[in-house]
C-alpha cells in the first residue's frame, strides 16, 4: 500500500520525469525530500509492482503502429494459466489477460493485444499465436479498433 509520500511521488511523476541531468533530484526538490529517498522509494515501488517499469512510454499511433488487434481465444479453463503465460511472454503481445466468458455472445476467456503497422501484420502475428496454441484453442477471433471514441490517461489523485 502507498503512504502519503508515495502518493506525492505518483502525482509529481505521472506526467513524466523532468528531462534534466538529475531528474530524481529535481523531483526531490519539488517535494522537499532527499534525492536518496526518492530513489529508494521508486526502487521499492518498482519491486512491489506499483510501478510497472520506468522509461519511454510510446504513443503507438504516433509511431505508425496504427493497427491494434485484440486477439481473443476460447481455451479450456484448466489450460488457461499455462497458455496465458506462454502467449503473454511473446514479443508481439503487449498485454495478456484471462477474462470471463459471456455465453452465448462471447465464448472467449483469454485476451492478447497485438499491435502492428497494418492489419495484415497483426493478422500474421495472430496466426503465429494460433499455431503455437494449436488445437487447445477451440475458437479465436481478432477485433480491430476502427475508431477511438475516447482516450484519456489514467489520472491518479495525490
Amino acid at each position, binding site marked *: 500500500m502507498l503512504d502519503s509520500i508515495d502518493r506525492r511521488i*505518483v502525482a509529481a*511523476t*505521472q*506526467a*513524466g520525469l523532468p*528531462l*534534466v*541531468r538529475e*531528474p*530524481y533530484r529535481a523531483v526531490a526538490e519539488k517535494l522537499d525530500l532527499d534525492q536518496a529517498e526518492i*530513489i529508494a522509494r521508486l526502487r521499492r515501488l*518498482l519491486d*512491489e*509492482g*506499483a*510501478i*510497472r*517499469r*520506468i*522509461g*519511454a*512510454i*510510446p*504513443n503507438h499511433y*504516433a*509511431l*505508425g*503502429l496504427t493497427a*491494434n488487434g485484440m486477439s481473443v481465444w476460447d481455451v479450456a479453463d484448466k489450460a*488457461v494459466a499455462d497458455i496465458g*503465460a506462454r*502467449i*503473454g*511472454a511473446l*514479443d508481439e*503481445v*503487449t*498485454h*495478456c*489477460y*484471462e*477474462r*470471463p466468458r459471456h455465453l452465448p*455472445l*462471447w465464448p472467449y476467456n483469454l485476451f492478447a493485444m497485438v*499491435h502492428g503497422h497494418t492489419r495484415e501484420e497483426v493478422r500474421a502475428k495472430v496466426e503465429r499465436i494460433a499455431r503455437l496454441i494449436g488445437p487447445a484453442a477451440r475458437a479465436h*477471433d481478432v*477485433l*480491430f*479498433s476502427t*475508431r*477511438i*471514441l*475516447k*482516450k*484519456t*490517461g*489514467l489520472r*491518479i*489523485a495525490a
Partner: protein
Amino acid sequence: MPVIDPTEKAIINGLQGGFPLTPRPFRDAGAELGLSEGELINGVRDLVGAGQLSRFGPLWNAELLGGDVCLAAIAVPPERFDEVAEQVNAHPEIAHNYERTHALNMWFVVSADDPRRIAEVIAEIEAETGLSVHAMPKVKEFFVGFRVEV
C-alpha cells in the same frame, strides 16, 4: 509512417524499461545505448515533443495504487452508435473507449479510485442506454509488457 532516426529508434526500442535509479540516469542509460547524456536527454525531449512518446518516466500500475479498472463491452445497434458513445463517454470514469469489429462493437475501460464505483458506473450506463453492459474484469494478468518495437 513517421520517420524515425537511429538515435530515436535506439531510445524507443532500448529504453521502454530499466531506466536507471541512479543520480545521473541519462548518463548511465546513454552509456548502454552509445549516446552521451546530452544526446539522450535531447532525444527523449524531441520524441516527447513530437508526441511519439506519450511521456518518459514511471508507468504506474493504477490498480496497485488503490483504484480499479474494468474492461466492458456493449453490442450497440449501429443506428444508435454515436448516441450511445456520447452517453458512455460522458462518464468521467471512462478512460478509453474503442469501436471494434464485432457484434460487441463498443469496448471501454472504466476506472475509479473507489472500486465500488465501477459497478455503479456500469449500472448507470445500462439505465441510460437500455443496453446490457458486459463487464470483463480481468481474472488473471499474465504479462503486461506494453512494449513495442519500431
